[in-house]
């Protein structure tokens, strides 16, 4: 039966192809002149160059974090190219002028770039290597005052907003990888939902790494003003290389009074092969600030890819009565390693947070949940509920849970529940004795395990995420 389980979890990666396209790549290495050159290529204002250089100088004083429960050889930061962009023939006026090779790439990945062919109600910003290729439905969104564009465009079109909010949630020197990102980030998405506006469609960014020796450092900034709400989706894939690529993104969310932001991720970066060769190092800082009263930030993530995942989408609950949520499914297979979780920092009164984390480990992988619940002295009436469940498939993988709880207010209520279960021979035999084959059994058990999280995903995404888990875990029974 272990051979059956083995077959179930040995599914090939479907997005591993490389697009043959001419790219503008900055030579490998990192120093101030590289940063100046990136900034110059993007024709950035002086204040942004200063932001980068300050971050870089701070980064030089920092050391890589070693506390995550993952192991990998030292990264040579001088052996990475910090900028790679598909070379456009000229400035694009419409989708029809996008390189057809790029269009084909995203078609193959199932990303709708033509508005008429797009999924109803989803606007997409497409990031290829480090650069935004196109953003759909801009006009329709602009009609209601929603700004949705690439980060570079926002720097030029809405500098006052970028200056106000960039680094306001994740400061440039926040941690090693956030500092690196702040120094070299190349593009990303910017969303701004003005006062009282409920964004009329889902906003989505699709990230694709194509170049072998470049890192990807994008930055996402979402601001929802008073009473505004938005649902934002993020998807990621990368080709199959036998070297590791570094992905160090920063995502900042700001919710003002009564605003609500729902941020969903389906992460399927290339995970390396069954022997752990290649794959993305996904070292990402995501944090949301519930700045206003009655505001709400909800993170939902389905992490299936990357050789190493190191990310903790967090909420700082500053406004009174604000709400933070974290729903996560992290699947690791083969030699993948994940150290992921969240931080809920309660500062305002009556702030509430919910954490539901489901880790699935298969193969020889290592899956850790790490989470911090912090209740500050000012957070009267704060409440948290955490549930961390781990599932093991086979007997060569491992799962760990590292919950940290710091409470400085006596009136706070903090609950933590955790379970570990295993899909093993006996469970599959039980299903088999009722006529159900192992593939269907695993799929039913996994779906049951993740359903509390999947119900949080927008419909289209839930379908995609379900399919993705299926691809990763199902297959022909040998």
């Amino acid at each position: 039966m272990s051979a059956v389980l083995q077959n179930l979890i040995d599914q090939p990666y479907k997005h591993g192809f490389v697009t043959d396209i001419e790219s503008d790549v900055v030579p490998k290495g990192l120093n101030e002149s590289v940063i100046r050159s990136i900034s110059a290529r993007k024709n950035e204002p002086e204040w942004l160059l200063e932001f980068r250089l300050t971050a870089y100088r701070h980064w030089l004083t920092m050391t890589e974090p070693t506390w995550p429960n993952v192991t990998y050889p030292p990264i040579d930061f001088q052996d990475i190219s910090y900028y790679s962009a598909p070379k456009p023939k000229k400035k694009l006026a419409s989708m029809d002028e996008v390189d057809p090779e790029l269009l084909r790439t995203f078609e193959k990945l199932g990303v709708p770039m033509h508005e008429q062919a797009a999924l109803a109600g989803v606007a997409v910003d497409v990031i290829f290597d480090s650069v935004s290729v196109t953003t759909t439905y801009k006009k329709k969104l602009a009609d209601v005052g929603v700004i949705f564009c690439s980060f570079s465009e926002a720097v030029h079109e809405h500098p006052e907003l970028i200056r106000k909010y960039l680094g306001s949630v994740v400061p440039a020197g926040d941690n090693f990888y956030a500092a690196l990102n702040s120094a070299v980030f190349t593009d990303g998405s910017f969303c701004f939902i003005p006062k009282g506006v409920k964004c009329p469609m889902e906003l989505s960014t699709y990230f694709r790494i194509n170049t072998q020796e470049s890192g990807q450092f994008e930055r996402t900034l979402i601001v929802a003003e008073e009473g505004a709400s938005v649902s934002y989706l993020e998807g990621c894939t990368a080709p199959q290389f036998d070297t590791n690529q570094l992905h160090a993104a920063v995502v900042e969310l700001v919710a003002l009074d009564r605003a609500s932001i729902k941020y969903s991720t389906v992460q399927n970066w290339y995970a390396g092969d069954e022997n752990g060769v290649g794959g993305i190092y996904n070292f990402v800082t995501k944090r949301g600030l519930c700045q206003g009263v009655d505001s709400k930030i909800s993170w939902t993530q389905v992490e299936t890819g990357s050789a190493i995942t190191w990310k903790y989408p967090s909420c700082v609950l500053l406004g009174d009565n604000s709400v933070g949520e974290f729903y996560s499914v992290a699947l690791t297979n083969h030699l993948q390693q994940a150290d992921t979780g969240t931080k809920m920092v309660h500062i305002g009164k009556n702030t509430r947070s919910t954490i539901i984390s489901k880790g699935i480990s298969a193969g020889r992988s290592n899956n850790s949940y790490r989470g911090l619940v912090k209740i500050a002295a000012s957070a009267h009436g704060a409440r948290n509920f955490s549930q961390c469940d781990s599932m093991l498939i086979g007997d060569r993988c491992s799962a760990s849970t590292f919950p940290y709880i710091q409470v400085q207010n006596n009136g706070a209520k903090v609950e933590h529940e955790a379970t570990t279960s295993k899909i093993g021979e006996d469970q599959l035999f039980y299903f088999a004795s009722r006529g159900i084959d192992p593939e269907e059994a695993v799929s039913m058990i996994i779906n049951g395990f993740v359903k509390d999280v999947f119900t949080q995903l927008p419909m289209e995404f839930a379908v995609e995420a379900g399919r993705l888990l299926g691809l990763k875990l199902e297959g022909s029974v040998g």
Partner: protein
Amino acid sequence: MSESTGKVLLDVRNLSATVAGVQILKGIDFTVRAGEVHAIMGPNGSGKSTFSKVLAGHPSYEVTGGEVEFDGQDLLALPAEVRARAGFFLSFQYPVEVPGVANSQFLRLAYNTVMGGRGREELDPLEFDDYVREKLQLLEMDPAFLERSVNTGFSGGEKKRNEILQMALLEPTLAFLDETDSGLDIDALRIVAHGVNSLRASGNAIVLVTHYQRLLNYIVPDFVHVMDGGRLVKTGGKELALELEARGYDWIGREAA
């Protein structure tokens, strides 16, 4: 002992099997005809449970010799799920818990897979709900069972009723009930036995695997076999069970030696 006239459903010839390299079954001969009820009794560790699991196709056990014909097919050549679809049923001594999977969902998938395979129409969730509620009554089970996760947090008795519920849904030709009476109080035992008896028909057969005689007061066997040391060492009628209850198993070993 009653007269045997039904068609042969199960024919086991000289079956031997190991688990983790240890020989547990050492040459079993066993025949079951349609319409019959058999009881396999024996002391702990005699190989009773192993025998059921080997027939159901548990992957941890390796068949090292012998043949098994089930309803005209070579049973040992079929994967476990195909054995179930072909009409072989095992009621587990320790049913597995499956957190997060609703019992109704699991039962419906099993029903549609097994019965669908036999030409019965597949049922959608609403149709299945109607169908399964009738079966629940048979076992005096609360419909709330359907919404709970499969066997998760069930008491011993609830788990056993859930097993017999599955038997009622899958209408097996041959059912092995492994220690179905263990963990049952007297009321639950009566309900489960009533359920099993109502599923008896001239075209199917039941094998009760049990340590104690008390279940046999409710489900009366045509044949009683004694297993010891991986072999069936004695066969008799229902009165053999009473004798075992009175005298224990030791005398059988001496007699067989």
